[in-house]
């Protein structure tokens, strides 16, 4: 049964390489985008940390900023 799934009547190398390429491309793209997101999130945190109390209060009043901060604190 396993041998049959692996060899697939001699077409196994074609089928498995097509599926492997697809899954590897998915993994690669996911981690590239994830890395970009994490980088921007940590940049946001460091910038937010360097704000004065008054500026931080103004920034926190915006919905998106509040959401970004709450998401990062969950990570």
């Amino acid at each position, binding site marked *: 049964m396993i041998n049959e799934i692996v060899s697939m009547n001699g077409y196994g190398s074609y089928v498995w390489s097509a*599926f492997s390429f697809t899954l590897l491309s998915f993994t690669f793209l996911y981690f590239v985008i994830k890395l970009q*997101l994490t980088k921007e999130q940590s940049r946001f945190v460091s910038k937010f940390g360097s704000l004065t109390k008054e500026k931080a209060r103004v920034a926190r009043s915006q919905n998106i900023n509040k959401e970004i901060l709450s998401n990062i604190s969950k990570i």
Partner: protein
Amino acid sequence: MFKYFEPNKIFVITSRAPKYVLFLFIIVLSIGLTEALILSPEDYKQSHAVRIMYVHVPAAWISLGIFSCLALFSIGSFVFKNKNFSLISKSLAPSGFIFNVIALVTGSIWGKPTWGTWWAWDARITSMLILALFYLMYLLAWRIYKDKEYVIKITSIIAILGVINVPIIKFSVDWWNSLHQSASVNVFSNTSIHMSMLIPLGIMTAAFALFSLLIFLMKYNTELIKIKNKGLDRL
């Protein structure tokens, strides 16, 4: 109407959705892979090589669909001067490009056992390659040009010009002699593919669509945080 889709209104959803979409994607992909690699029958002519269809066809469909959306949002950003549209287009492009590459590479792998060659300058393959070049130009334009207004204009032109290629890809098999067969799955007429193959194809298409949604959401969030970072500089 567009005010309901403004970034500050939808960010609450787009920032929380990826983990649920990822979970759903893994489940649907697992079912799809089991169906495609184990449960679905082999073809009487192509034997097991037909299983490549389950990654090749959905990838091609989704790359075409994403490019059409890209062009639609680009026209929208031109007509309504809505910057959120260009942000959506920019976030859609990476997954569209990857699906285009997957369609080309898996098509090439499928070509060897069925046609006896890795590559042919067939109308559909060539037009898919042209689409990949349009995707590449679109993505590079966002990297090269720094002026926001200018880059929106350039990328919109690339998307609108590129979408002319989409119907060419779709109808290339009917207009010219092609190694590809005519469409087996039709929305408006009879589908010639058997249910035992149509079901795994549908599940894999759903999995691929979920993956493109996941990448879109993550990229869209990245772009919004980038804008917010610039906003913090201006405070």
